[in-house]
Structures are given as C-alpha cells and as structure tokens.
C-alpha cells in the first residue's frame, strides 16, 4: 500500500476504496498530496501513434510480421508501405523488406483483440539502413528522453549523434563518427541502469565529458 485517504495518485497504482496500492515494483515520488508510481521494469504494450523500432521476422502474402519488442507482434500491411495501390507477388514483398530488416514505424491501431497494425507511410518512417539499435527496458524510455527531451538533447549535442527513441525500448543511434555512436550506446545503457537514482542528468553529463576526453587521448 502506498497511500490511504485524499491523494492524487498517478502512474502504476490501483485502488480499493480509499486505499491506494502500487501495482508494480517501482519508485514513488511524493510531492505534497501528489503521489506518482514509476515502474522500474516492464514489457512494451503498444498504443496508437507510438513510434517504434521493429525488426522484420516473417514475410507473408500481403504483409510482414514485425518484432516490436513486445508480447504482441506488429503487422505491416502492403497498403501501409505504398501510398498507391500496388499488386505485388510474395517474392517481391521480400525484395522490399526482408527478414532481419529494421524499420522505424508508427502504431496505427491496437485494441488487444488483434495484433497491432503498423505503418511506414509517413515521412521519416521506413527502413533503417545505418546506425546502432540499443535495447532498454521500455519503462525507462522516459528517463532517456528526460524532462522535455533534456537528456536526449544533451547526448545529441555533445556526441553529435542523431537519436531516435522508440517507445518500445529500442533506440536508434546514428553518429557522424562510429566512435561517438559507440559512446552514445554506453551512455544510454548507463541511464537505463541508474534510471532510479537522483541527480541523473548531471552525472550523465560528467560521464559523457569523461568518455569524450578519454576518446580524445
């Protein structure tokens, strides 16, 4: 039980009457009468409009199966790849996206009764041809992003890398230099491990400058 009585509770909790219980192994942030429960770990459950990074695991007659690091396998229909109606045979489907290909996609529909539908029709979505994909526990994605994107922006600036954060705990890092790409991966892993500690942003900042100095030597 985390609280009883008049509280404003957010995050992963459930209530029985006026008693509030945490429902996950997590951290509680208490701020006056506001309590927030933040899970430390958890699987990715798709939601509409989520940006995800997926891996093609099967090529079907009219669609691809996509591993999105979730208990639910993503489905990418041919119609969500091309803007114009096209007639394509199965063999040519695998010419477009084959098993093992990584894609940046958006969840367009998911209601638990059927597997989540993905699209790559919008701008910036599609097949990923370079960079490194880091996998972290999806519940820690907000920490990597930071308050209003502060954490991810800092890494972007200092290490001169492009970072695309998938809601499913997969993060794509594309660096101008491969060394910096590797450094960014290390930084993200550190954030994941220390996500529940205080003073994280400052510590990560000094960690990056230390790494950059070592790299320079």
């Amino acid at each position, binding site marked *: 039980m985390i609280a009883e009585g008049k509280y404003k509770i957010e995050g992963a909790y459930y209530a029985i009457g006026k008693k509030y219980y945490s429902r996950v192994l997590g951290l509680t942030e208490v701020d006056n009468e506001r309590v927030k429960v933040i899970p430390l770990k958890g699987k990715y459950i798709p939601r509409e409009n989520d940006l995800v990074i997926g891996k093609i695991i099967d090529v079907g007659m009219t669609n691809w199966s996509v591993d999105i690091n979730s*208990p639910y*396998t993503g489905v990418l229909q041919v119609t969500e790849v091309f803007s114009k109606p096209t007639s394509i045979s199965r063999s040519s489907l695998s010419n477009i996206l084959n098993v093992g290909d990584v894609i940046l996609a958006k969840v367009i529909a998911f209601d638990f*009764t059927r597997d989540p539908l993905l699209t790559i029709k919008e701008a910036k979505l599609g097949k990923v041809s370079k960079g490194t994909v880091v996998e972290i526990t999806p519940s820690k994605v907000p920490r990597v992003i930071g308050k209003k994107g502060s954490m991810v922006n800092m890494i972007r600036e200092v290490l001169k890398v492009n970072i695309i954060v998938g809601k499913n705990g997969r993060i794509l890092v594309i660096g101008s230099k491969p060394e910096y790409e590797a450094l960014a991966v290390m930084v993200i892993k550190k954030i994941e491990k*220390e996500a529940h500690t205080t003073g994280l942003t400052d510590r990560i900042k000094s960690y990056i400058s230390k790494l950059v100095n070592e790299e320079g030597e």
Partner: protein
Amino acid sequence: MKKVSNITEVIKLLDENGIRSDGRRLDEMRKIKIEVGVLKNADGSAYIEMGNNKIIVGVYGPKEVRPKHLAIPYKSLIRCRYEMMPFSVSDRKSPSPSRREIELSKAIREALEPAIFTEEFPRTMIEIFIEVLEADGGTRTASINAASVALADAGIPLRDLVTAIAIGKIDGKLALDINGIEDQYGDGDMPIAMMPQLGYVTLFQADGIFTSEEIEKAFEMAKKAIWNIYEIQKKALKSKYLQIVKEVDINE
C-alpha cells in the same frame, strides 16, 4: 540427509522442553534469504533459501503464446512448472514429472494467479519456472515466496506479493514452518499462501488430521509469519536497486 528408513520409532520431533529436532521452538521460522534478479535471460528471477531448501525461479513474459491456439482472448495465460531436480532429495528423483510435481504446479499457479493483473495482457502468456535444487520440507511455500518476488522483478503488475508458510502438526502440537523430517514423521501439514495486504488466502491445503480449532489457530500462526516473510520479500526487491544507488554514490 541421513537415511531414516526403518528407524521410525526412535525419531523424536519434540523434546520435553518443547524444542524441535533442529533446535527451533514451535512458533519459530527457519532462516530465509531471498536474492532478486539472479538470472539474466529471464525477465524476472529470484533465488530463495528457506532453511535447507534452495530454490531458483525464473519468470518470462508477458510474451506471445506458443502454441497460438492456447491464447486466451481476455487475459494472459499463466503457466507454472514446479520441478525437483533429481539430486534435490536423498533418493534420486526420476527427472520425468511426478504426479506430485504436476499437482503442485497447478496449486502454485493458482496461488500466484489471483495476484496478477492477467486481464491487462490478453492473448499473452506468463511462464513461471520453479526449480528445486535442494529440498527439506515446505518447498511449495518457499517456491511461492520466491516466485512472487520474481514476478515483481519482471515488472508484471501485481495486486500484492504472495507470501506462504506451512503449519505442521508434530506430537499433536501445531508447529510453524515444518522441515523435511517433521513433514515425514509428523501428523500433518497445512501450507497457506496469502496476499497479506489484501487478506486473501490463495493457497490452502492440508493432509493429516486437524480439529476445527486448530485451523483457526493455524491461520493466526501463519499470518504472523507471513508478515515477517513479506518484509523479507520487499527488502530483497528493494536491495537490487539500492545496490546500484550505492555503486553510484561510491563512484561520485
């Protein structure tokens, strides 16, 4: 463990001072140690030592159901396998699942499932694998204590942890947390699991003979022990993350 067959008559479970064969009082629990996150592949894991019992639990999921037709449209399928390793008991146990193991797998699953928000993950499954490395009475309750911690470690939403203890009957008296010898030569065994915060009993079994009054008394004894174990479970979960906080502090 010594071979004890054919010497039934000489085994004395309780001495004249009310002290048990392993030196405990009737209401005394064995030592418990729980470690969290002991396996890397599993989504959640825990290792427990409860007296001489040594048990490791791994949890996978929620994940896709294989084979697919077993998927349940409105909730997650919970699978549980309780297994004793052949070397965990004095006479080697055959590696194929025994009837006891199959029944206990079901009983343990039904002790844990009430705590899991299964309805939030339709068409998925959660797998709980319990391996007993060394057994000395009360493996099902120790397994439940470890498995609920492993479920929490996996980040699976839970109404509460599930905490369990067995009440036995030796020399006609109720005894907390009976060990292997007490189970074998005692007059009864009553394992109980609860969601302590919510007050629900999720596993309740017994063999041996108990009077009506003894059942009420057993609940009282069990409740007290269960709150103690509950604290140990929570501490174990916290310590995994506190360890990282400590490391961070040292490095600064």
